């Protein structure tokens, strides 16, 4: 009797043997079963496949956390740095060899807390890095502490009486910092992620993909699959992502509309 992991591994091996273009690495992700990160993995892999970027021309840069392990599950070059420093390292990689396509990946703790000081600067420098921010509002790898995007009142072992700090809104921050491409996405919609990534990778400057996702192990109350499916929805039909004023208004009034929020006219 084969375990599900074994079945998946066989499939991966088959795909690789078949010579089909696959950015999946031979090592299987170590994320918990049911984790939203699998959806993001799928979305990014499909983007790379459909753009047909040679895997050796891609560098995936990360910090620390469950999302920090991402490079090990991707068959590209990878740079797994220390906590919070994916964006400075990605800046160096891109400027060091501008021919490379650079993805930076990280969670909300890595990108909004310890590394929060780097986001404004990579955005204002408009370095051509594609940043996937996995936002599940919890520290997963350290087993469930509140993060900068946890809602007020979040109860964890580290906040037994509920948190008292207001959450950060990464999409709003990215707009304020002057990012040239901003998308808000949902891990339960890998196709939507792929589409936005394809558009963002073509943006010649800094692109941020703020992705709502789950932590099935440490968050049973807020960003659950059920809640995110219920809350998220597409941007209005007549939405114009090149209008920065409208983008701010949209993000201020609706936390859960998904799609390309803003792209700067070339």
């Amino acid at each position, binding site marked *: 009797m084969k375990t599900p992991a074994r079945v998946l591994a066989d499939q991966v091996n088959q795909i690789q043997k078949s010579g089909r273009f696959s950015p999946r690495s031979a090592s299987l992700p170590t994320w918990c079963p049911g984790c939203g990160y699998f959806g993001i993995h799928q979305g990014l892999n499909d983007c790379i496949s459909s753009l047909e970027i040679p895997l050796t021309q891609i560098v995936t840069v990360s910090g620390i956390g469950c999302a920090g392990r991402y490079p*090990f599950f991707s068959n590209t070059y990878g740079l797994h740095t220390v906590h919070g420093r994916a964006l400075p390292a990605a*800046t160096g990689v891109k400027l060091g060899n501008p021919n490379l396509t650079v993805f930076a990946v990280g969670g909300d703790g890595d990108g909004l807390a310890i590394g929060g000081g780097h986001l404004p600067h990579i955005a204002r420098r408009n370095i051509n890095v594609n940043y996937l921010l996995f936002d599940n509002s919890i520290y997963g790898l350290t087993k469930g502490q509140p993060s900068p995007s946890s809602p007020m009142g979040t109860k964890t072992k580290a906040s037994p009486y509920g948190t008292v700090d207001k959450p950060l809104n990464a999409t709003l921050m990215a707009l304020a910092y002057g990012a040239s491409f901003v998308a808000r996405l949902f891990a339960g919609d890998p196709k939507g992620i792929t589409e936005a990534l394809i558009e963002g990778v073509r943006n010649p400057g800094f692109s941020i993909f703020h992705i709502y996702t789950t932590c099935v192990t440490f968050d049973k109350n807020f960003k659950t699959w059920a809640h995110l499916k219920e809350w998220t929805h597409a941007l209005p039909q007549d939405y114009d992502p090149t209008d920065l004023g409208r983008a701010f208004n949209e993000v201020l009034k609706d936390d859960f509309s998904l799609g390309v929020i803003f792209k700067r006219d070339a």
Partner: protein
Amino acid sequence: MPEVDFTVEVCGMAGDGTIAAGGLINEAMSHGGFSVLGFDSYPAEIRGFGRCVTNSRIGSNEIVALGEKTHALISLNDEQSRSRTPSLAEHSLVFFDSNPPAYVPEDSSLLSVLPPGAQVFGIPFGALAVGASGASRGRNLTALGGFAAVTGVDPNLFRKVIRDKFKSKGDRLVDINVKSFDAGYEYALEKFSDRLKKIFSKIETGHDPQKVMLSGNQAIGMAAIDAGLKLYFGYPITPATPIMEYLAKYLPEHGGQVVQMEDEISSIGAVLGSFYAGARSMTATSGPGFALMTELITHGVMAEIPAVILDAQRGGPATGLPTKTEQSDLHAAVFGGPGDSARIVIAPTNVEECYHFVIRSFQLAEKYQTPVIVLTDFFLHNRVENRPLIRATEGQAASWNVFPDEAFKDHYQRYADTPSGISPRALPGMQGFNFIATGLEHTEKGSPDYSPENHTKMSEKRHRKLRYSLKDLEKPAEFFASDHLDVGVIGWGSTFGSVLEAVEKSRKNGFKVGALKVTSIFPYHSETIGAFMAKSKRVLVPELNYEGQLANLIAHLDSKPVERLNFVTGTPIPPSAIQNRIEELLEVEAQ
């Protein structure tokens, strides 16, 4: 030829043209064929609030340390210059403005605090400048004219360097500045005709065109450019900022780029990122910034990514003494950061070595795939020397990258455990060599692995690599070598010049003394240092720090205790302090 060893100071308030005047003295004397070592000190406060002093030691023999006694003081502001009088030599020459721009009350005048025997030369600096150029701004140049006349410097030397300095600003400015100089020169020649000294006039050594007047900052900037630097990432911090400013100006025309980052953490992060992608990059900082970098430096050690970090030490801890010199980051450079994170640390001792060590640091970083720290200090950065500088050729600055063999394509092990510990390093873009550089403990392949066997094996590999790097690191150099020494003095960094002068003077006094220059701080040549210590009856390590940080590192190499001589004065160690300590030790030994 009579020996010249003459120190001149210029002192004024910020805005008086003090630093410019000191610079012109250095250039003129260098063109006159003298050896020059200059050092400026300026206030940490912004313009208009502080005292500026330049110190130039001028010699007919090679000058390796700062002068301790001032033979001539040029005062552009008497109230500020009062602070300089304690270091005046006997019969020193003092030049002051006999018609100063502001009234100086008698009890705060310079003359009231001069030692007896000082020879004063009152010259109306401002009035002469107004007469020559129509404005008093040239009073620093009339002061130089007076100095040149009294000490017997060929005025053409000054005229030449004034022209060189101002030629980019147009003929009119050159003309009025030369006129201001001449006004002071002629006034003093006539007024003090019976008191002229002719100190410099008898020297006939010609100008050596290979000798260039360079500061440590300039040498480091030139080295980075000659090494083909592609990217400089930095954050402003005294005293490392001038390197960023130099490169911001000159790097673009050589195809490189300077990026001012948001902090020191992102600076080192970006350096690691660009070296990972195959581009030479560097950052320069000082103690407080270096402290912020240490986590990512150990990431470079663990993930085996090259990096070049220059730490221009200043007084510490914390914000400390931003504009003062100290050698107190040695422990941080060698040991700073989490874990067993051995990295290469090298420390130049003069301006010429600043150049060569920075070029070498890129090659060491590439070959040994580890951060290389160049440890300098405020004194080394801001002093100027006129030594011959032979610039490196492209070949001498060539890459030392070790790339994997094509045979390993598709089964490449990024962290292969080789006899030397060096694992060939692929760069992104190479087909069939994909790998993950990680700060987690990892296998030879690069997969995370925390097993006892693997961590033991890979720790051993990384340290073996560092030991192996010794063969490319400069050996300690012995001066006045001999089989037995009564006192052996070990020096490093900017302090070594004072050590050399002190040892030379002690030897002239008939003592059996030698000096060892240590430039490879980590890893270090324990056998060479140990042998030097073993053959010395007493071992002395003078350092500009309180804890004796080099002494702590090497004391275990010999069974007898190491004598320490520590200063935290924020100023270079005077050679006489080392000489006195040497001779004290000899007396104790004799008893």
